[in-house]
């Protein structure tokens, strides 16, 4: 056996498995995206099974492209992903800086802060949409009715009563509706992923050059200047990694969307594909190919970045 054969042999199973995993389902998707394939087609029974004779060319792509639902789903996907990323980076940075000092109980604080990240996504969604955000039974409902009751009682109070009579009666928000379900999803995913950002920023802050900071202080640099010109550049790479990894993960959000609105609310691209895949497989596959393209745009950036920073 030559010197090179053995290392190759050791890599073969992993490479082959991933190759099959990537290529086989994707080529089937590609094939389905070019044919008419509708599961419940009463008038055209020949469309209910996949066959090359049902060739539709780019028809499915054009159909999807001209579909308002598709663009709405892309809008929702991008809106949800962008909001989560902005919130987690800002909150994560603030929290990491807050915890990056020694104080009593720091270990416990860290454990508490990181915990949400390990919560199963399905449980996360069930917990937030029911026990916290439910407009009647959840904490939101209880808080709103508590505040209403309080201001109601205070209206008859002497002297300050007029102030409370100016208060409007609050109505709880239903987060299962179509306009608000994306907000609920953003809230719960931000809660779950901010710990991830905190953890990465914290790790990175610990490797910051302290001597450089001390030198800056001796030179009379203010706190803000130090943050702006030393800490922030130092965090640039971890920050871009946080952004990219979250983009990849959140573009494929599904469980949260499903549990929050059960199809009645804001749909993102994976959810739309899942819905289409119960009937119009051709269109679902074409949408899937669009999703692959969208993910690839993000992936190219991420891979470039990681390959630069990792391989030295």
């Amino acid at each position, binding site marked *: 056996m030559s010197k*090179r054969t*053995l*290392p*190759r042999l*050791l*890599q073969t199973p*992993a*490479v082959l*498995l991933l190759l099959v995993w*990537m290529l086989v389902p*994707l080529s*089937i*998707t590609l094939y*389905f995206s070019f044919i008419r394939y509708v599961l419940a087609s009463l008038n055209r029974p020949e469309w209910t099974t996949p066959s090359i004779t049902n060739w539709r060319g780019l028809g499915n792509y054009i159909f999807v492209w001209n579909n308002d639902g598709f663009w709405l789903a892309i809008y929702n996907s991008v809106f949800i992903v962008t909001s989560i990323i902005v919130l987690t980076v800002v909150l994560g940075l603030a929290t990491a800086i*807050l*915890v990056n*000092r020694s104080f009593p109980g720091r270990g*416990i*604080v860290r*454990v*508490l*802060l990181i*915990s949400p*990240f*390990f*919560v*199963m*996504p*399905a*449980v996360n969604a*069930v*917990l*937030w949409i*029911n*026990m*916290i955000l439910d407009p*009647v*039974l959840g*904490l939101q409902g*209880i808080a709103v009715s*508590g505040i209403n009751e309080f201001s109601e009682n205070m209206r008859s109070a002497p002297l300050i009563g007029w102030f409370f009579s100016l208060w409007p009666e609050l109505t709880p928000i239903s987060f299962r509706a179509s306009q608000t379900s994306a907000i609920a999803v953003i809230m719960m995913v931000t*809660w779950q992923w901010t*710990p991830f950002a905190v*953890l990465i920023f914290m790790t990175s802050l610990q490797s910051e050059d302290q001597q450089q900071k001390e030198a800056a202080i001796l030179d009379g640099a203010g706190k803000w200047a130090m943050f702006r010109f030393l800490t922030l550049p130092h965090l640039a790479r*971890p920050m871009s990694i946080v952004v990219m*990894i979250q983009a*990849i993960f959140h*573009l494929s959000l599904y*469980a949260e969307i499903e549990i929050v609105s059960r199809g009645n609310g804001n749909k993102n691209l*994976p959810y739309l594909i*899942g819905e289409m*895949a119960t009937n119009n497989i051709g269109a*679902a596959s074409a949408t899937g190919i669009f999703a*692959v393209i969208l*993910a690839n745009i*993000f992936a190219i950036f*991420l*891979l470039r*970045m990681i390959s630069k920073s*990792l391989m030295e």
Partner: protein
Amino acid sequence: MAIVAEQSRFSRIFWPTLAWITAIVVFFPIFWLVFTSFKTDADAVKPEFLFKFTPTLENYSNMVDNYDYWRFAGNSIITSVFATIFALVVGVPCAYAMAFDPTRATKDVLMWMLSTKMLPAAAVLYPMTFLTKNFLGIYDTKFLVIVVLMLVNLPIVIWMLFSYFKEIPKEIIEAGKMDGVDTWGEIKEILIPLAWGGIASTALLTFIFCWNEAYWTVRLTTTDAATLSSLIEGNRAPEGLFFGRLSAVSTAAIGPIVVLGWFCQKQLVRGLTFGAVK
């Protein structure tokens, strides 16, 4: 560190207090879930019992009758354990070869592996269902779930192992070669003992990812191989009426993993950033 010590009294008290408050607020939903699990379903939705109530273990003792908890938990345990083991069995030799016998293609292979992770699952959902149902006949089996969980996590496993193996000095492995140890011996006698910590944390993290996976496990199973994710996601009952029991089963589903997660915070950074931040 003389300079840092010059903190005013205000900031010595204020910032730690703020950190504690933040931590408590962040942890509150989890606390609330566990807290609610000790209320009866009736108490759980009444504002007057928000904090004052008679704790009960009823929800936990009825978990098996209400939800058939152990069937789902058993599936979760079996699929996560075996997926982790298989991912390591495939991943360790691969990462070993990449770390100690890199070729010019190694970097590209690693990048390509990572790129499989970015393929949106929804795009291949129907083909996967179609293949496993109509051709392979393995839809809704634990075998399928194990294979899929393994494949989904394999890139991360290889990346993590690779980043740990790279830290082992090459000379040690080469010294083994000089002594006439064969490759299997190298892996078994030298690599595994040296990288034990790294392999263990990779395993732990993979197990957590498998346990929490909520796309394939839900969509490629119906009854026989359904995991805890399916149990929770499929809970379409009028949920409002059952906060107590829902909380109990949710607590039981996340409890072990959250505790496990506390022990591998550091590895999480490495695993999720594919080794780019350590």
